[in-house]
């Protein structure tokens, strides 16, 4: 009961102050602007709570969708702003000497597979490859053997094509778009369901850059 009066006092104070400034600030007066952008490396989030949240995000996206592509597109859209924002945040956290904007496709993808991946999943991506098909020089593949987001997702029988890592694809797409490399990123399941498969959840993120980006890359490479 002792704490009750203080709670009331806070509750009465906050709206009064907020209305006078037209802006509501926390009771201690500290906003996000008072807090540092760097955080200690050991600070991690609970995977259980993330899995719970992500499960809800998938079922939210699943409402009123007509097909699997539509669902994946919605998941992609949820991830897109995260990629945009992480790009700036992670560049800021880089040591000052390597605080460089990625200027070519390789630098950008390396930033994504190392810095971004380590930030999100605490390990780098498993592979980064360029498409060997000469007809599609604009395609790159990022491989993750065991996407963290899919760990507690079981895909129902009739929806084999669905890969909820489309959310991660959205994050990658956001980072590419933000850096000025417009791209379409899609997630594809590559693990076979056979017995003894080492990585049943293996996922490939196909990054397809827009033609003008490839053209610019060639032009910049020459000069």
């Amino acid at each position, binding site marked *: 009961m002792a704490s009750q009066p203080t709670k009331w006092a806070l509750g009465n104070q906050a709206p009064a102050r907020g209305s006078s400034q037209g802006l509501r600030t926390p009771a201690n007066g500290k906003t*996000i602007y008072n807090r540092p*952008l760097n955080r200690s490396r050991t600070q991690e989030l609970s995977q259980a709570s993330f899995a719970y949240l992500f499960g809800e995000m998938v079922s939210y996206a699943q409402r009123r969708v007509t097909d699997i592509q539509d669902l994946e597109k919605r998941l992609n859209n949820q991830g897109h702003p995260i990629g945009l924002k992480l790009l700036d945040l992670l*560049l800021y956290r880089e040591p000052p000497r390597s*605080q460089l904007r990625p200027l070519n496709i390789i630098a950008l993808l390396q930033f994504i597979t190392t810095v971004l991946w380590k930030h999100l999943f605490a390990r780098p991506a498993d592979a980064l490859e360029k498409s060997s098909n000469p007809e599609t020089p604009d395609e790159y593949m990022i491989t993750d053997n065991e996407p963290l987001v899919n760990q507690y997702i079981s895909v129902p029988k009739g929806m084999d094509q669905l890969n909820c890592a489309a959310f991660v694809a959205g994050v990658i797409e956001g980072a590419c778009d*933000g850096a000025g490399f417009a791209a379409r990123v899609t997630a594809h399941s590559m693990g076979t369901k056979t017995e003894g498969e080492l990585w049943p959840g293996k996922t490939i993120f196909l990054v397809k850059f827009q033609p003008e980006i490839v053209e610019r890359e060639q032009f910049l490479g020459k000069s």
Partner: protein
Amino acid sequence: MSYYFAIIGTQDNPLFEYEFGTSKQGGDGVARFPEQARHMNQFIVHGSLDIVEEVQWANGSMYLKCIDRFYNNFVSCWMTGGNVKFLLLHAPSQPAATTTTRTSIANPTSPQTEEAIKQFFTEVYENWIKAIMSPFYHVNMEARSPIFRQRVVAAGKKYL
């Protein structure tokens, strides 16, 4: 020295504007652009965007230094990772208005000025990231936060 600071989004759309004067050497922090030239600031800054697009691919660093000049107006640029441009137009006060004692501070491309502007941009960048981290902020949205504005004002006072 008078300053005009603008943040330009990825589609060359303005997101934030602020006009101020120097607080160094006893300045009062009030911009003193000649009245008939003041409205030109936006045009000059907008005109320098073409040069930003050329320079941004040649150099990966965020601080692109002084990139453009239009008569007595100099434009410095900082490019964020998300392709948002910070542009600072700085105009030394007209020589007619002052005496010859201020030769050293008048040079807008001197290393000291460059460094001061860099520190200003770095501080604004930090606050910019905090502003865009808001889950309600979408790309190319105007920065309306009064606290963000306060912080930019403080950075301007501190370094320029």
